[in-house]
């Protein structure tokens, strides 16, 4: 599986989230050879961790399933998981990529039966649930993981657990001798789709994310709403497990703030409006407060916003919360001054959700290749980038819909380059 057959007419796609998958599939379906490199053990990226999409409130698993099916059926696509691009040399139409492959310790014999996970005792924070749950040292990253194969956490290698996992496997799928490898292969164009990570909420000192248990981020709240998530879909307070019926959302937590992120992350307004539905649908006596500077629900999202606004149990407070304190019961109290009347408020809630913004997951210093990055950390379209084209959130803060459109455009750019290479070699 790790033998990559590639030429300088091959397109390398870096990152297997929704943007990378889209770019890779669109290019592969035009008949181009594509190698898709993903750091995690599975495809789908952060979209796979969402419970529902806005504005239709449908489940991302649906679209992921279609994409995974397209990926399985396409012979032009080579997928490398647990792989990272560490180097890229050459020029447009003639690159050599260096890729580091981390050992999964599980081979293609795996049927995802789960016996290894039962045998292993060690538990670790589950990254899929942003550390809100535990998973075993041998695990399936999530129920819809593609490839559908278990992974051994490198931290159990060399312990008894590793041997227990191997002994439990009936299919000879566990190979404890796997080692990190480095491979090199040629490619003509690169689609860079490394996506985003949530801004570190602990850096927003007045909100006390690192001090208060009942102040969480929007990505954590999303996992909480998911029936497959850490609380089985129950919206509760981390401190005492009590039902969280009075929930506050604080918009622009990090975004549009020159002390944190320069840019508007574009998704957080809609994400909070969507998450408001989770609360009001879970509890009849729910109370939601959205603290905002301005609501950025563009185009057709305006309808969605108006519908949420019409709900009796949702309050919109035009104010960026100045700071959060807690009372003796651990209830977070939002303090500030509103802009509609300049009224000073101190509102007590069960749970505060910080609508944290997106920042690029790869920092400027960590790019293995010279690339033009803007002030916000996103990749600028620039001739100096050669045939490296940004797709999705690597290029700007985008929602899924726009990321997919953007990725399709990036795929076209890459196809144009490899077509030129093919024409020259004719």
């Amino acid at each position, binding site marked *: 599986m790790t033998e990559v057959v590639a030429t300088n007419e091959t397109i390398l796609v870096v990152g297997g989230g929704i943007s990378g998958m889209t770019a890779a599939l669109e290019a592969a379906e035009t008949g181009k050879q594509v190698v898709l490199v993903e750091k995690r053990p599975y495809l789908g990226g952060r979209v796979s961790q969402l419970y529902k999409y806005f504005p239709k409130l449908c489940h991302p698993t649906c679209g992921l399933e279609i994409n995974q099916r397209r990926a399985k059926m396409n012979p032009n696509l080579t997928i490398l998981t647990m792989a990272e691009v560490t180097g890229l040399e050459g020029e447009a139409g003639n690159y050599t990529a260096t890729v580091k492959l981390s050992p999964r310790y599980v081979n293609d014999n795996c049927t995802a039966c789960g016996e290894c996970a039962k045998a292993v005792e060690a538990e670790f924070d589950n990254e899929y649930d942003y550390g809100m749950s535990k998973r075993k040292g041998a695990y399936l990253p999530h129920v819809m993981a593609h490839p559908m194969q278990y992974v051994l956490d490198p931290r159990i290698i060399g312990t008894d657990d590793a041997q227990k996992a191997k002994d439990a496997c009936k299919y000879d799928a566990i190979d404890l001798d796997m080692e990190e490898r480095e491979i090199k292969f040629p490619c003509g164009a690169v689609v860079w789709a490394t996506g985003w990570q949530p801004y570190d909420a602990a850096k927003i000192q007045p909100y006390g994310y690192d001090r208060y248990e009942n102040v969480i981020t929007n990505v954590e709240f999303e996992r909480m709403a998911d029936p497959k998530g850490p609380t089985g879909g129950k919206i509760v307070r981390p401190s005492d497990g009590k039902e969280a019926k009075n929930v506050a959302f604080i918009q*622009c937590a990090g975004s549009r703030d*020159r*002390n944190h992120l320069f840019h508007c992350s574009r998704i957080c307004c809609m994400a909070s409006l969507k998450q408001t539905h989770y609360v009001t649908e879970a509890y009849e006596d729910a109370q939601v407060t959205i603290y905002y500077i301005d609501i950025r629900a563009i185009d057709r999202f305006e309808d969605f916003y108006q519908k949420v606004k019409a709900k009796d149990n949702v309050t919109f407070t035009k104010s960026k919360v*100045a*700071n959060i304190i807690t009372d003796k019961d651990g209830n977070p109290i939002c*303090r*500030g*001054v509103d802009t509609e009347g*300049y009224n000073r408020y101190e509102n007590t809630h069960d749970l505060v959700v910080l609508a944290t913004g997106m920042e690029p997951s790869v920092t400027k210093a960590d790019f293995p290749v010279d690339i033009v990055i803007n002030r916000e950390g996103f990749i600028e379209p620039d001739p100096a980038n050669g045939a490296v084209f940004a797709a999705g959130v690597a290029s700007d803060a985008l929602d899924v819909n726009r990321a997919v459109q953007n990725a399709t455009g990036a795929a076209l750019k890459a196809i144009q380059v490899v077509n030129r290479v093919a024409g020259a070699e004719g």
Partner: protein
Amino acid sequence: MSDMNTAMVEKYRSNFLKEVEANVEEGQWVKMCMQCGVCSGSCPLGPYWAHPPQEIFMMIRAGKREEVLSSDSMWMCTSCYNCIVRCPRELPITHIMHGLATYAKKLGLVPKNQPTAQFSQIFWDNMMKKGRVNELKLGLSLYFKDGFGQGIKNALANQKLGMNMMKAKRMSAAEFFGGHGVKDVAGLQKMIKKAEEIEAAKLEANK
């Protein structure tokens, strides 16, 4: 109402924001405020002012000249810098507040008996005499600003503080007779006078 104030009203009749931008130090930042409210919520003295910074900025844009310039709000700023540190748009809010206070003073619009304004004047006069602050005289002028009887009361109330300051060599009774200063007091006074002339000329030119 001072002549300068009348002239400024005439010139900027309907646009107070422009007036602030032209005449108030750091005033050009006012239009950058996005009304998020973090400054007002973060201000430790916020509950005690007539108008928190966010509101002052909106009032400037709304042309509420009289209310802004004669308010005590900018005089209540203690320069803790919490607002500057937290402002998502990096507005130098503390400096704008001081700029507004200075401008209001130049126009003769400071509210009567505003204690911070009074203290500022006492501090300035004290410092200008020798180029250094004479702690003893500063304290005494502050105590006696509201008359002799009140002065004695104030002095007695703060007796212990004064004694401790003397003990810690933060204040000396000898300061009463002249007190310490910079080497070239006349030079300093000349320099400040020149700076004041430049400032006044700038304001005059904007009239």
